[in-house]
Structures are given as structure tokens and as C-alpha cells.
């Protein structure tokens, strides 16, 4: 029977003992870390599908936005985008606090992020009222509402999740050793914030082109 062992690979010559290995897994040694990467890849595929759908429909219409509708205003969406990206900074600082076992700092930065997310949601909610077109009038409106709504829901879920870890932080659950929950929540948070960028570009810049 041929066995193809490369010489530079390990060969076992005795039992392997793992009794002293840490049961606290906090980074790439934690399955959930990779699980969140998997979730992010899935959601990235969804983001791509939406973005490509937008571009596909955009390229079929010489006049975009259609029906003499003005392109959307840029100021407020840009501010809310900046606010969202700032919340990534506070989440980063929250993670740093856990690294240093600063429970109070962690709670403050976490809730700051949640509050920023709620502000973004409030701004978006106002924007919904001011959209020039309903979702059932033309596919331009359908895209605007659907993509905005989809991202809105994701900010809601990220805010709820982060609020939950904030509460757990308040009872002292997260420490330097036990921080994987914070790590994966931050990863998801960053994804929601950065996934907004392609949407921001297609929804708010393309109509101006």
C-alpha cells in the first residue's frame, strides 16, 4: 500500500497530549470565528447579488432616475455613512477594553456604538419618508426601498446583538480570556458598516452619473 507522506510533514511517534490546552478560544482557533466569516461570505454574496441587480437594471435604462425624478440628495446619506463608520471605531475601542479587562470602558464603547447605530436608523427612517418614489411605481423605487430596507434590518440586528453583549458586559461576562462573543459581534458590526459602501455608491452616486 503506498502512503504518500511528505518528509516535511509531521509524523506521529507518540500520543499527543492536549490536557494543558486552553479551553478558551478567542481568535482563529475558535470555530465561531470561522463561522462568522462564513456568514459574512454568505451576506457578501447577497450584497453582490443586490448590487449586480441594480447595475443590470441601471444599464437598461438610458434615463436614470426615470420619469424626471431628481437624483437623491447626497448630504444626509453621507453623514449617516460617516456616522456608521465611526461606530466601527467605537467597537474597536470596545474590543481593546476587553483586552485590557476594562469592563466599564467596554460597556461605554459598546453602548456608544449602539447609540450611533440608533441615530443612523433614525436618520434612515426620515429618509424613507422623503424618498421621491414608491416601491411600486418603477423598479428604481423598488431598488431604493428594497436595498435600503434590507440594510436597515441588518443595522437593527447588529444593534440588538451589540446591545445584548453590552448587557452581558455589564454583569462582567466578558474578560480577556472570555471575549470571543465580542470578537464575532464586532466582525459582524464591521461587515454591516462596510457592506453599506457598495449600496451607498449605487443608490446615491449612480443616479448622478
Amino acid at each position, binding site marked *: *500500500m*503506498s*502512503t*504518500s*507522506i*511528505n518528509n516535511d*510533514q*509531521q*509524523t*506521529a*511517534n*507518540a*500520543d*499527543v*497530549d*492536549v*490536557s*494543558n*490546552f*486552553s*479551553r*478558551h*478560544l478567542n481568535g482563529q*482557533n*475558535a*470555530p*465561531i470565528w*470561522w*463561522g462568522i466569516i*462564513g*456568514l459574512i*461570505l*454568505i*451576506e457578501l*454574496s*447577497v450584497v453582490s*447579488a*443586490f448590487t449586480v*441587480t441594480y447595475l*443590470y*437594471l441601471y444599464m*437598461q435604462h438610458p434615463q436614470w432616475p426615470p420619469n424626471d425624478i431628481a437624483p437623491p440628495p447626497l448630504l444626509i446619506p453621507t453623514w449617516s455613512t460617516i456616522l456608521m463608520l465611526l461606530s466601527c471605531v467605537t467597537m474597536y475601542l470596545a474590543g481593546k477594553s476587553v483586552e485590557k479587562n476594562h469592563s466599564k470602558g467596554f460597556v461605554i464603547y459598546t453602548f456608544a456604538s449602539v447609540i450611533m447605530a440608533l441615530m443612523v436608523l433614525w436618520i434612515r427612517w426620515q429618509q424613507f419618508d422623503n424618498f421621491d418614489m414608491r*416601491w*411600486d*411605481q*418603477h*423598479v*428604481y*423605487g*423598488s*431598488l431604493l*426601498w*428594497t436595498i435600503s430596507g434590507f440594510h436597515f434590518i441588518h443595522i437593527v440586528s447588529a444593534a*440588538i446583538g451589540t446591545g*445584548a453583549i453590552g448587557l*452581558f458586559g455589564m454583569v462582567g*461576562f466578558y*474578560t480577556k*480570556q*472570555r471575549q470571543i462573543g465580542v470578537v464575532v459581534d464586532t466582525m459582524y458590526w464591521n461587515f454591516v458598516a462596510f457592506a453599506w459602501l457598495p449600496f451607498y455608491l449605487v443608490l446615491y452616486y449612480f443616479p448622478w452619473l
Partner: protein
Amino acid sequence: MKNHPHTEQAIFDDQEGAEPILDKTWLSPPGFFGWFTHVNQRQIGFRFVVTSLIFFALGGLLALLMRLQLVQPENTLMGAEFYHQIMTMHGTTMMFFFAVPAMEGLGIYLVPLMLGTRDMSFPRLNAFGYYVYLIAGITLYLALFLGMAPDTGWFSYVPLAGIDYSPGQGVSFWTTMITFIEISALTAAVELIVTILKQRAPGMTLNRMPIFVWSILVMSFMIVFAMPTVMVGSVLLALDRTFATQFFVASGGGDPLLWQHLFWFFGHPEVYIIVVPALGIVSTVISTFCQREVFGYTAVVLSMVTIGFVSFGLWVHHMFTTGLPHLGLSFFTAASAMIAIPSGVQIFCWIATLWGSKIKFKTPMLFIMGFFAVFVIGGLTGVMAASIPFDMQAHDSYFVVAHLHYVLIGGAVLPFFAGLYYWYPKMTGSMLSERLGCWSFWLIFIGLNLTFFPMHQLGLDGMPRRVYTYLHNMGWGEVNFFVTCAAFLMAFGFLLTFINTLISPYKSRAAGNNPWNADTLEWWAQSPPRNYNFRHLPVISSRTPLWQKAPLYKVTGIRADRREIIITTLLDAKPQGVCIMPSPTYWPFVLALTVGFGFLGFMFKPILFVVGFFLSFFAIVGWLWPARPWLAEKPPEEGHPVRGLQ
């Protein structure tokens, strides 16, 4: 989650007499209510396989009904409406409820065993995925029994599937249940990827991994990138139908072709998602029955990876007749033809493997031989269909029906049944009857060829697909009659295997640990394996751990009194941590119910989706709630050299 503090009372699995403790720790609670709390990978995998076989039987019965309607011209066995419902359900069942869950189920059952670990990465998510699958399937069949099944084909083209032309609930069932079941496929895929990348036995580097595990890894990545697209598509269709968005409505600026792009961008990789694990099964069975490693491990693995990538570039070959510009379509002709090459490489690696070896033609090997003949024919007609001029005649005709059944039955069902006969002893402890298996194979093989080969002829004779009847003077009656009879022959062949699986545990044919003398790790465990899979977790030094002369070393220091598995590095499988796994819990079932409530409720009142969203939130909180006592702090001792691995 019960976490015992790291005290002197800890019991490790390398201690004498740890078996009863292991049994207790890894126990899946018995009884009816206990069934809903199981998280063990073998039980969940077994459920996936059994449920998928039930759906296979249901889908097959639907096909027989279709064939009965088509047995003669202008038959009045059933009306057009009912025929279209069962035609849609046949396709949807086979593609979504049988083929992918069957392969996933085999993966969930076998991959942890083949990797030398005790469970998958996310046991509760595993269970959740199963309940989602079960609920979606039951709901869709309930719709069929209530006469409300979707009736616009498994591919549900718009505008026919839009609210204007399909105002009933049927298509709404389809859009919601498809979105729902994709969740199941996606959770299984992510889990399989993480398990394969991070939970391999120490020493099982990537190039010592069994080929079947590679095929599951490729399948899982394909699921992650392909399925979200159909979710987006079905969500947009649901929005068009419920809220009058205009995505697919030409008069509103939308485009019916957009649906086709979104659907087929998923739909083409979908068929390779089904076929790639089957190719992994073929490698496994050939290797065992030739008692040799498959020739060209690297070539076989790279071929599967290539198929995985290239399959994303083929989707427009389903749209060759839509009037898209010829230059753009040509790219897809080239890609669709090129994908024959990695398939061909594997075929010849297998032929090289089995060349000159003494093979006992037990039932698994019979199915593999059948696979060779049928899949090659299917692949050849596929390359023909890649030609745009020819496809302009063959598309949407019975020629394509013949092609797709040859590749799916030949390329997926036959290897799956080979896998069934091969792994049944491991799963149940009994061997399947060879005599019944032999009869079953030959009836299936002859039946399927007699059923589907004449369909090539029908297609060239101008018979389109998806027709509930045809006229007397078309000259298709005799061939259709023949095909219907042959279909019953084939169905009878499948029935024999079903009977075989049901009665074999009662015939005393004990399997033992390794009845086939195979080389992969699942055959090291008992048949069926204990809930903790292996008495000791192994350490790996070669690609064929059970064929090497040296005994397998084991891992020590794993607790027996709580569920622990080892995390290893991605490339070289060096141990880097120990992960505590969750115990049985009912939260996955509860979450599946709340998510199902949200999706199903959406069909009747959109606000119910929001209600389901919030109920799910509570279920997730319950699921994730860290029960006290929390895992104790301990100064980390990472970085110390691992004894036994140099």
C-alpha cells in the same frame, strides 16, 4: 452548557474505565420529547439522509403520476392544472428536498468520523438546519395535498410566476419555502467548512484528507456562494407578488430576464453542488473495492475544485434562446464545454486506479459501474447542449429532459446509492442483502436507460418539455408509452433498495467495524459508532490511516465528563485548542419554529414576518444564553511544544 471547573475531579478519556462516562456525556436523550433536543452529528446526519430518501420516494411517485398522464396522447387522467402542480413539485422535491440534503446528510454523518473528531463545529446549528428542512418540506407537501402547490415549474419563470398570472398562493408557497430551505443548506455548508478546516485530527494535513471530505468542502463553498443568489431572487419575486415592486415587470422598468439570471446563477452551480460529493463517493468506493489509493490524488482534488469554480461561469447556457447577443453567449459555450475536462480527468484517474485490480463486485461497485456508463452519456449530451445552434433545437425539449436525468441519476443518484450500500453497515451495524442489491441495481440501470434514452429521440422529434399532453398525430405516443412502462421498471428497482434498507436490520448480518477493509477513519469506529465516535481521538500520519502498518497513536488529555473536541490549524492540523461542545437542547427546534412561523406567516399577512422576527430574537437569546457556571479562567499555556508530534 454544563462546564465543570478544571479541578482534580476531571475525568479524561484516556483513563481506564472512561467509557461509561463518555457514554453519559455524549448521551442523546431517549424518548419522543428527547428526540427534539439531539445535537449529535451522527443523529442529525442520519435524519438528513432518511428524510431525503423519503422525499426521493415522494418525488419519484410524482414522476410516475406524470408518466401515467403522458402514457398516451390527449390522456385525461388528470387536468393541466394538477399536472403542472405535480411537475413543479417533482422538480422542486428532487432538487431542493432530496439531492442537496442527501449529500449534506452524508457529509454531516461521515465528515466528523473521517476527520477523527467527535462532533461538528456547531451542533445546535446543525439541528436547527434539519428542523428548517423538515418544516419546509412538510409545508410544501401540505400545500400539494390542499391543492395549493406551486404550478409554474421548479424554476418559476416570471412573468408567469408573477402576481398577474399566478394570483393564487401556490407560487407564494414556493418563494417562501425556497428561501426557507436555503437557510438549511447554508447552515450545513458553513458548518461543514468550519469542521473540515478546523477540526481535523492532529496530523491530518490538507493533503492527507480523504477525497470525500474534499468533495464536501468544495460543495460547501459552492453552496455559500450560489445559494444566496436564489434567496435574493425569490425574495424579490415575493416582494413583486406581495408589494407590487417592479423588479421583474417590464412595464415598470423591470426585466423578466433578471429572474433568469439570478435563478440560473444559482441553478447551474446547484447541479454541481449535487454532483461533486457524488464524485467524492465514487473515489471512495473505487479505492476501497480496489484496495488501492485513488491514482492522482492531487489531480482528482484539483479537478473537483476546478469544477467548483468553473461551474459559476456557465449559467447563461440555460438562456441561449432568450435573444442575448451571440458574442456574449459564446463565452458560455466555451466554459460549458470546458467543464468536461476536469470531469474527464477524474474518470481516467479512476480507470487508472482500478486497472488490473481484483475487484469483488459487491453492490456498491455495481452502482459505480452504472455511474460510469450513465454519467458519461449524460456528460456527452451536455457538451452537445453547450453548442448554441444545437441548443436552439434541444432547449426546452425532451432532449434536455433526457440529458438532465442522465447526469443527475447517473452522476448523483447512482453514486448516492453506492454510498448507501457502502455506508449502511457503518450506520446500522448490519449489511444490506447482496441479492436484493444486485436485483435492485440491474432493474434501476436497465429501467433508467429504457426510460430516458428514448427521450433524446422525442426531443429531436420536436416534443417540448413541461407539456401535460400531446396530440394524436404527432407520432410521440408509442415512445411515450414505452417510456412510461420503463419508468415503472426503474421505480420497482428503487423499491427493492427501500425494502432492503427496511428489512436488513432484522436479518442477522452483523457488519463489524470494517467489513470492506476500507482505509478511512470512519471504519475505525464501531458499527454503528458510539455517540462519542471514537474511544480515543486518533493522530494521523498518512493518507490511509487504516492501511498503514504502524498502529494509530491517540490524543490524550481530552475530558470525558464534558463534550470536548480538538481544534487544529488550517493547513497542517497542529493542535491549537480544545473546544467545549454544547449538550442536547430544544432551542434549535424552537428557533426553527419561530423562523418558519415568520416565513409562512408572510404569505398570509406580511406583518407576521416581523412577528416571527421578534419571536426568533427571543429564541436566539435563549439559545445563546451562557448558563452559569461560566467556564473558569485559567492562565493560558499556549505555545508549549506538543508531545508526540515532531
